[in-house]
């Protein structure tokens, strides 16, 4: 093993990780929790000072993944070269094991709308996203993962089922897919899709990571409900069940617990990661027994 590999624990293992947030910087540094890997939002480490120092220190013995929320892969007007360059700067410093972005958009006419907004699922959107994924991958000189969104709206002019859109982006650009199981559950509820059929529509070989998080349920005036992907609670039982289906289909995949609003103590996050770890171990055993048979 080369000294470089020892100095930089790079690859993200097919185990359970947690999203690292500012609230937990100090306690993670002090307690060095037993967690296989961590992931941060790239945009939170674009300056200097304390955040980067914590990340440098924590990253020294924990594989780290960079998850971007602001690149706006689906913008009709093209990527912001300055933002692409900021991302590259963070990646150079952190040497992440994985890098990911979203199938969404947030910039139009130079205005950043600070949310992961839904794309019309059209051939034009697909071409735009693929062009931008190509651009990112050649700028970063590496493969990225793209995450399926959670959405509350659908466009009348959409012509491609979202899972087919995801598969097509992976096929055309060679990127991987970050399968957010909670997002599938949320969007399936909001749009009346079949979550299992969604999973079945994704190419297993492209799945590079799974996200799990909590969401909330809001009543609508028409008597229905909309599920909101707010990352503010534990993963619900139905999403754990869908995660088991995903593991059965994809095999063991690096799995991240995300929590962004009402961030709990680190123990709560680690407890959620333990649950994922147990399900991953089961999936691992099943793969081995299938190989042996």
């Amino acid at each position: 093993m080369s000294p470089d590999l020892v100095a930089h624990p790079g690859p993200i293992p097919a185990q359970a990780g947690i999203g690292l947030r500012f609230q937990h910087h100090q306690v993670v540094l002090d307690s060095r929790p037993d967690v296989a890997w961590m992931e941060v939002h790239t945009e939170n480490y674009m300056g200097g000072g304390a955040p980067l120092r914590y990340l440098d220190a924590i990253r020294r013995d924990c594989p780290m993944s960079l998850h971007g929320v602001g690149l706006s892969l689906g913008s009709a007007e093209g990527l912001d070269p300055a933002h692409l360059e900021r991302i590259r700067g963070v990646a150079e410093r952190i040497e992440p094991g994985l890098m990911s972005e979203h199938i969404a958009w947030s910039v139009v006419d130079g205005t950043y709308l600070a949310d992961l907004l839904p794309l019309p699922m059209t051939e034009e959107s697909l071409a735009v996203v693929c062009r931008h994924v190509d651009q990112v991958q050649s700028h970063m000189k590496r493969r990225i993962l793209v995450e399926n969104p959670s959405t509350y709206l659908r466009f009348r002019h959409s012509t491609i089922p979202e899972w087919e859109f995801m598969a097509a982006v992976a096929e055309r650009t060679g990127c991987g897919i970050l399968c957010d199981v909670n997002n599938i559950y949320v969007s399936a509820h909001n749009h009346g899709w079949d979550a299992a059929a969604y999973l079945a529509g994704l190419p297993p070989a492209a799945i590079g990571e799974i996200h799990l998080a909590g969401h909330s349920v809001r009543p609508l005036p028409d008597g229905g409900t909309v599920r909101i992907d707010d990352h503010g609670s534990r993963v619900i039982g139905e999403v754990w069940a869908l995660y088991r289906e995903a593991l059965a289909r994809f095999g063991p995949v690096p799995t991240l617990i995300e929590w962004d609003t009402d961030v709990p103590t680190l123990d709560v996050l680690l407890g959620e990661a333990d649950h994922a770890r147990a399900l991953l171990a089961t999936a691992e055993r099943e793969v081995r027994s299938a190989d042996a048979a």
Partner: protein
Amino acid sequence: MPTLLETQRAMRASLLDGEDGAVAAMLAEHLGADRLNIYRNTFITGVTKALRLTYPAIHRLVGADFFEGAAGLFIAQHPPRAAYLDHYGAEFPEFLRDFEPAAALPYLADVARLEWAVSRAIHAADTAPLDLSRLAALSPQDRGRVCFVPHPSVALLYADYPVDAIWRGVLDADDAALAGVDLDAGAVRLLVERRDTGVNVSGVDVSRLDEAACCFAAALCDGWSVEEALAAAAGIPADALLAEHLAAGRFFDFRLAPPEPTPSPAAAPEVWP
């Protein structure tokens, strides 16, 4: 069929200007205002939060409701231009200066200017400290031609009110200190900088300078040569001040001015932001 750009512009009009008509006509089924509101709330809440993190003292001075109202108007006028919200809100101090409902707090915009400088310092890029042996290696003549590059966290600020005392008192919730603030005490000149001394020690310092020391610091930060800055700083212990700036790491690089002495700029150095 609307193009992607038309779809995105329609969504922008809904989120930013509350004009739902164009995007509503593009939506499947009868999904309408309720679901658009989810996105609008996420946008406004997220950007307001970014503004609150940059301007915590303003938030406390005016209260949550007032702040949210002002932020909503500000965001409509100055929506974010980049997906890097740590650098969002540069125009907020000037917005507050002209914001009629805040007229009773004449120092508010200046406190905001200080908070902007503090925020810039918090998020400024890391730089390696200046290697002082590079200076020592210069001939005495060349040392006079040195033009320093300030650390990206360093800012100098002039304010009509004692905004440093207000800022500190508000963030420390120190009512006694705030009661002692004399709004008529006169202008202050402030030096804002970040000091990185350990993995988890990265604090922003705000200190007062007298007028002469501030002019000298501003000349150096503006790229005047050491010779020019010293010449303009007659009557103060400028050598000692320069040594202090260097020891504090306020410069991270330098270049040499052209050998032929250029005429000194006539105007006094600018104090910014």
